[in-house]
C-alpha cells in the first residue's frame, strides 16, 4: 500500500504535493525496475558470451535447436515473405502508375525488402515462433526444478541451455532473412509482372541497377543482431520465470514483446550506423532516377 505522506491536510498545495509524490514514486519504481532489468539482461548476455568460449557446446544440445530455428521456422518465414512482397506491389502500383513509372516498382519493392522488411519480418517470426517457445521451455524447466537438477549434476545451465539457443538464432537467422528476401522478391515480381503486367525485362533491370550487394549485406548484418537479441531476451525471460503455468505464460509473452521492441530499437540504431558507413564509402549515394 502506498503511504500518503500528507494524510491529514487537504489544502490544494498539499494535495498537489502528495500527488507529485505518488507520481514520482510510481515512475521511480518503473524506471528502477527497467534499469535493473536491462542490467540483469546484460549480465546474463555477458555470462553467455563467456560460456560460449569457455567450453565447446555439446552436439546433442545444438542439433534440436538448429532444427527448431532453421528448419521449422522456414515455411512460415517463406510464406510471410511472399505475402509482404505481394502487398508491397499492390500498395505502390497505382501511385507509380499515375506518374508513369511502374517499371521502377521492382527497385522500390526489392530495396524495401532486402534492407528492411526481410530482416525485420524474419526476426519477428523468429521471436514469435522460437523466442516465446524458448522462454516457455526454459520457464517450465525452471519451475519444475529441471534447471536445479542440471546444476546439481554439474552442468552449467547457461552453457547447456542458453549457448546452443543463442548459436542457433545467430547463425541461422541470416538464412531465414535471405529466405524472406527471396520469397518477397518472388511475390513482388509475381504480382507486378504477372498480375499487373509490368514489362519483366525493365522490372528486373531497374531492380538490379538499384539494389546492390551492400543493401543485401545491410539486411543480413542487422538480422544477426536481431537473432542475438531474441535469444538473450527469451532465455533470460525463461530463466527468471515465476512459478506456475501463469508464470510460464507470462514469460513467453514477455519474451516476444520485449524482443520485438528491442528489434525495432536496434533497427533504428543500426540503420543510422549503416547509413553512415554507406555514405563514407559511396559519398554520392544511389539514385533512383
Amino acid at each position, binding site marked *: 500500500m502506498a503511504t500518503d505522506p500528507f494524510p491529514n491536510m487537504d489544502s490544494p498545495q498539499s494535495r498537489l504535493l502528495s500527488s507529485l509524490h505518488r507520481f514520482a514514486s510510481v515512475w521511480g519504481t518503473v524506471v528502477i525496475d527497467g534499469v535493473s532489468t536491462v542490467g540483469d539482461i546484460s549480465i546474463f548476455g555477458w555470462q553467455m558470451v563467456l560460456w560460449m568460449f569457455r567450453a565447446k557446446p555439446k552436439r546433442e544440445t545444438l542439433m534440436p535447436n538448429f532444427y527448431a530455428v532453421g528448419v521449422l521456422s522456414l515455411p512460415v518465414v517463406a510464406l510471410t515473405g511472399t505475402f509482404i512482397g505481394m502487398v508491397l506491389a499492390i500498395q505502390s502500383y497505382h501511385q507509380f502508375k499515375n506518374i508513369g513509372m511502374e517499371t521502377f516498382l521492382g527497385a522500390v519493392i526489392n530495396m524495401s525488402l532486402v534492407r528492411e522488411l526481410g530482416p525485420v519480418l524474419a526476426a519477428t517470426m523468429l521471436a514469435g515462433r522460437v523466442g516465446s517457445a524458448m522462454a516457455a521451455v526454459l520457464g517450465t524447466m525452471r519451475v519444475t*526444478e529441471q534447471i*536445479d537438477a542440471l546444476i*546439481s549434476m*554439474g552442468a552449467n545451465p547457461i552453457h547447456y541451455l542458453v549457448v546452443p539457443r543463442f548459436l542457433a538464432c545467430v547463425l541461422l537467422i541470416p538464412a531465414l532473412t535471405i529466405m524472406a528476401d527471396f520469397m518477397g522478391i518472388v511475390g513482388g515480381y509475381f504480382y507486378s509482372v504477372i498480375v499487373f503486367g509490368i514489362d519483366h525485362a525493365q522490372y528486373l533491370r531497374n531492380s538490379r541497377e538499384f539494389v546492390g550487394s551492400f543493401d543485401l549485406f545491410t539486411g543480413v548484418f542487422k538480422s544477426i543482431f536481431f537473432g542475438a537479441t531474441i535469444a538473450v531476451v527469451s532465455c533470460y525471460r525463461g530463466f527468471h520465470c515465476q512459478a506456475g503455468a501463469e508464470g510460464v505464460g507470462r514469460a513467453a509473452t514477455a519474451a516476444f514483446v520485449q524482443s520485438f521492441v528491442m528489434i525495432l530499437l536496434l533497427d533504428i540504431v543500426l540503420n543510422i550506423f549503416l547509413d553512415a558507413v554507406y555514405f563514407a564509402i559511396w559519398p554520392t549515394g544511389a539514385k533512383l532516377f
Partner: protein
Amino acid sequence: MQESILDQITSTALPHGKRPILETRSMSLQFGRQVILKDISVKVNKGETIAIIGESGCGKTMFLKALVGLLSPTSGSVVFDGHDIQKLDDQEMTNLRKRFGFVFQNAALFDSMTISQNIAFPLRQHGVPKGKTAQNLISERLAEVGLPSNVLPKRPSQLSGGMRKRVGLARALILEPDLLLYDEPTTGLDPIMSDVINELMMRTRKRYPVTSIIVTHDMHSARKVADRIIMLYPYTRLEHGESQILFDGPPSALESTKDRRVSQFVKGEAGERLMEMLASRSKGPADTFGRVDPNHDDGMDEE
C-alpha cells in the same frame, strides 16, 4: 559468533574420521524480506542418515538446496568435507557435485530426454566409473528402484508420477555419491512402493558409507530409516529468540519430547492450529498463518 570460531578450531583438531562431513554455520536464507531460514547450525557426520521433518512451507526444500549450493545463504556458510562451498570456483564446485546426489520433490526429470538418457546424465557429465559400463549401471539402478527395463526408451511424460520419482532416485544414485539428499522420496507413492524406497535407502547405506539427508512427511519412513531426526519450524511462527530447530535427536527421543509442537507434528494432530486456522478464516481471506491475534475469540461459530 564465538561458537563458530570454536567450531572451526575443534573441527580441524579432530581426527579426520570424526570431522562432520557437512556442516552449516548459522546459515540464514531470505527471499527479499521474507525470512525462510534463520541461524541454522547443523553438523552431519559421515555415514549418518538424517530425516528432516516439518510442516509444509517451513523451508525444508530451501534448506536442502542451500546445502549443495543451489541457493546461496544470505549469511552464514555451508561446509562440505572441509570446503566452504561458497568460496569454491566453478570448476571446484563441478568436481564436488560429483559427490552429491539430489532427489527432487517432483523428480525434475528432463522432458527432452528419454528415461535412459535421464538416468545416464550424471555419467555423461562426470564420466563412467572404472570397470563399469553405462548400460550395466543403468539397468542395475533401474532394477533397484523396481522399474521394468521397458521404460528406458520412454519419455518422462509417459510415466506416472510415482514412476518418475523412482527414475529420479535412480539418476541420483547412479554415481554412488557421498551425500544423498532426498526431497520427499516417498510422497505420492503407494504404501508398498514407499517401503521399497525405504528399503532401498537402507540398502544403499549398507553397500557403502553414504551420508543421507531425507526430507519427509512420512513419520513411519523417518523412524525406520533415520538415525537422527531434525524438526524445522516456520520462522514466522517462532517465539522471539527461539531456535528454528525444534528437535534434533534420535527417533527414540521423539516420544519423550516435551515440546507440544513436536509431539503434535509427530502424531499428526492439528491441535490449536485448527482453531487458529478457523479463527483466521472467519476474519476473511487472511494473509498468512501465524499472524493470528491470540485474543481473537469471536467468529468461531460463524457460518
